[in-house]
């Protein structure tokens, strides 16, 4: 099964566990400081949010549910008036710079026309409204961010190139007028994908070393600072789940997409920077050394010794799987299966090529890539393969551990800082944690006593 020469793609039933895409509000409201996220859905959505996001709910978050009641469903109440009432209340209490409406399964099914109502309400209450349909009918987990960013891309100001400005005789009012000359070296570059600000800064610095200035991020720290987009602007993604945003940027905003592997792991980061440099005809400096240096560092070596030759199985739930698998293979691990909710072969093309290349370089069999996996069948395969590590959701982690299979929660990779050269150790810290736990418990000799379950009981 593992002797494949090329990557194998399969598609199963889609009966798998993942988070609802509305979970994206949890990190996006923190990223966009002056935003307010209103999830228009039912108690089910609310229950998920309050339980999945744990204690964050107690810090007076800038998100809330517009909980639909029976009268809303049966259209006894007027959607527009109801939303207006709630949005005015939000305006009064929080005064945000933007309100993001998150459409859910329910608004889809009852066909609530959020996109139609938003512009009207926007002009009435004087706050921009962004509509994103992050529902479980269409999307999984991190794809929620994709829908929000795709909607936000439409709200970015229009970029007018210098030539156009000259022909239109418009006075240039760009704030970057002073270092205009410097910028002239390469076209505008906008990165998209929400990252903690420290990670965003470190990636910007990485590009700056190569003489590349970023003209903006989507999303920005504040809604008012959204980058200018338009013809002649280059865009590049930092996360593998942003295919919809990429499409919107290309088709609707006429930007040029730089298709690169994602800056996850030192190998990914290097490839990402190289690709951007190539696009701008810049010869990258010192990247190879930098990657080597990271892999050679003592702390990395300690982790690498732990994982070399060990096998991994991704059940798949957050779309980071291809990039993580590629990095772990680079680290000397063997990947049996990469489960993934949705596979955009075009958007992830460069990443897939790098994965293939890495497998060949390491001389290990190509992993199976299983789109829309079936968790039940996966558990059967895990039982057969007995991998050293299963990266999976919380629903399966404890039961697998009770059957002697070591697990790591996949959700942690979404919330941890995993981008750039500096965070490679953080990824391995996560990956090795269960392995190190096993080491330290081994001495206790209690592990076998804990497992009174036979794996055949699945």
């Amino acid at each position, binding site marked *: 099964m593992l002797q494949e020469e090329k990557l194998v793609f399969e598609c199963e039933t889609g009966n798998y566990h993942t988070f609802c895409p509305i979970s994206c509000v949890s990190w996006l409201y923190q990223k966009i400081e002056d935003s307010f996220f209103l999830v228009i859905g039912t*108690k*089910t959505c609310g229950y998920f949010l309050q*339980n999945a996001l744990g204690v964050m709910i107690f810090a007076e978050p800038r998100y809330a549910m517009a*909980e639909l009641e029976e009268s809303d469903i049966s259209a006894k109440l007027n959607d527009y008036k109801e*939303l207006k009432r709630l949005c005015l209340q939000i305006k009064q209490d929080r005064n945000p710079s933007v309100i993001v409406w998150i459409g859910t399964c329910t608004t889809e099914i009852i066909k609530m026309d959020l996109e139609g109502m938003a512009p009207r309400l926007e002009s009435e209450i004087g706050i921009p409204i962004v509509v994103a349909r992050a529902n*479980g*009918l269409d999307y999984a987990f991190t794809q929620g961010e994709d829908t929000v960013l795709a909607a936000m891309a439409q709200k970015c100001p229009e970029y007018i190139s210098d030539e156009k400005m000259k022909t239109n005789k418009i006075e240039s009012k760009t704030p970057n007028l002073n270092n205009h000359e410097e910028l002239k070296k390469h076209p505008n570059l906008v990165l998209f994908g929400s990252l903690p600000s420290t990670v965003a800064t470190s990636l910007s610095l990485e590009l700056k070393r190569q003489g590349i200035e970023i003209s903006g991020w989507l999303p920005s720290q504040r809604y008012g600072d959204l980058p200018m987009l338009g013809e002649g602007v280059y865009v590049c993604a930092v996360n593998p789940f942003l295919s919809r945003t990429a499409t919107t940027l290309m088709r609707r905003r006429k930007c040029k997409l730089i298709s690169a592997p994602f800056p996850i792991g030192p190998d990914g980061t290097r490839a990402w920077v190289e690709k951007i440099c190539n696009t701008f005809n810049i010869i990258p400096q010192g990247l190879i050394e930098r990657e080597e240096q990271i892999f050679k560092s003592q702390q990395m070596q300690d982790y690498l010794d732990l994982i070399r030759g060990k096998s991994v199985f991704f059940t798949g739930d957050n779309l980071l799987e291809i990039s993580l698998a590629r990095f772990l293979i680079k680290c000397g691990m063997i990947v049996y299966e990469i489960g993934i909710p949705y596979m955009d072969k075009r958007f992830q093309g460069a990443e897939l090529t790098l994965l293939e290349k890495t497998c060949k370089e390491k001389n290990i069999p190509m992993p199976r890539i299983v789109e829309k996996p079936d968790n039940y069948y996966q558990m059967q395969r895990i039982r057969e393969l007995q991998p050293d590590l299963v990266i999976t959701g919380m629903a399966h982690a404890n039961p697998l551990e009770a059957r002697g299979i070591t697990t790591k929660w996949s959700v942690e990779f979404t919330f941890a800082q995993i981008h750039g050269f500096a965070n490679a150790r953080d990824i391995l810290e996560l990956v090795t944690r269960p392995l190190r736990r096993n080491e330290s418990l081994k001495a206790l000799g209690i592990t076998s006593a804990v497992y009174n379950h036979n794996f055949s009981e699945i």
Partner: protein
Amino acid sequence: MKLAYWMYAGPAHIGTLRVASSFKNVHAIMHAPLGDDYFNVMRSMLERERDFTPVTASIVDRHVLARGSQEKVVENITRKDKEEQPDLILLTPTCTSSILQEDLKNFVDRAALESVSDVILADVNHYRVNELQAADRTLEQIVRFYLEKAKKNASNSIKEKTERPSANILGMFTLGFHNQHDCKEIKRLLNDLGITVNEIIPEGCSVLNLQNLPKAWFNIVPYREIGLMSAIYLEKEYNMPYIATTPMGIVDTAAFIREIAQIITAQMVEEKENIYKTFENYIERQTKYVSQAAWFSRSIDCQNLTGKKAFVFGDATHAASMTKILAREMGIRVVCAGTYCKHDADWFREQVLGFCDEVLISEDHTQVGDIIARLEPAAIFGTQMERHVGKRLDIPCGVISAPIHIQNFPLGYRPFLGYEGTNQISDLVYNSFSLGMEDHLLEIFGGHDTKEVITKALSTDSDLTWAPDGLSELNKIPGFVRGKIKRNTEKYARQQKIHKITVEVMYAAKEAVDA
């Protein structure tokens, strides 16, 4: 539409799934979009379950919307039937399937033809009932289904009661607040009284055993929220009496035991007098020697709690019992008792009548928080939400009811019911209030944190300044009342249009408040 940040009781399907996954070898299939199977995470995490949660989703996606989900649902049911061979497959509707208005009943009937397992559709409406009501209904539905099934198969011995007195315990289930410990404690209590446990449902029970339910002499429903409907059904159909008194606290545990005595003596021919006597002896012995709660209430330490103000909030069962325990067993003044079980509001009011100053029925956690802030109790007994309110207001809080976190699923033995339960509750109450002697010493020596700078305040107004002498005086006040005195003083200063608060202002404020 309702603007909501947080809710006390979850959606209906959670209640159904909690019941289904508590039974042995029952599989629930949710008719839901991707991501709605969050229940599996909760069960696996909070209960630290070693087994896979027997819940799968029959995913509703775009294709389903276009084509209808009959094929898929039927296929998923028959597939599970083959894979897991459960005794029962329960199709669970969600908010999404509620509005799709497909004929799920029809799907179930079709799937039942092809399956070895029994297949039923949970009869709950997402928009009408909450998690707790749904759990109650689902339990009753399953009980009814299997008893009616047994009736059809004439080969039953249903009507025969067990030889010795026996009881069913209804309503112990997964993700319940300390349910496992409570269950153990009730079993112990029954065992002490010479009563055998016939069946415990749904936790750990096989649906095939449900036909044995009528063999018991009576039913016990420890919690209001789940089991009552089943008990009422069993009473109606099989003439089984039930006890709905929650054996929480010394007084109610005694009442619970006396009810048992009444029920079993009514069904006995001989040794009636004997039963009463043994039971009374048991109550006395337990109250005096096993439970420390009665002695604790009498002990000198508990004296310091007399008249202290407490706020109680939770589900109907726990909030009502806790209110009664605080008021009549410990002499604590309950300034407000409340519940989020709106559907059970009348019962709750009746229970706490005379034991508290105010009754609050609300599902809105901000309203609850505001009332706590206004009443400024010395301690709160509530859910995890009230614990966080307490943290913010610097008021200690003991958690007595769901919704709860992983820390409320302790590994150690912590029942709330029965005589061991009374000990646990005493500890909880005592530890929640500032310790009596410590309080006293703090007051005498002016607190041990006099270096603390007071900047923490709930009010955001900054039109007031504290003079150094006022501030140092404020620092002498024990921590647990400092915030309150600060607020009162500032309120007074604002009324009097004073901008700088000195010692004099403080004492003037104190007099004004006292007067």
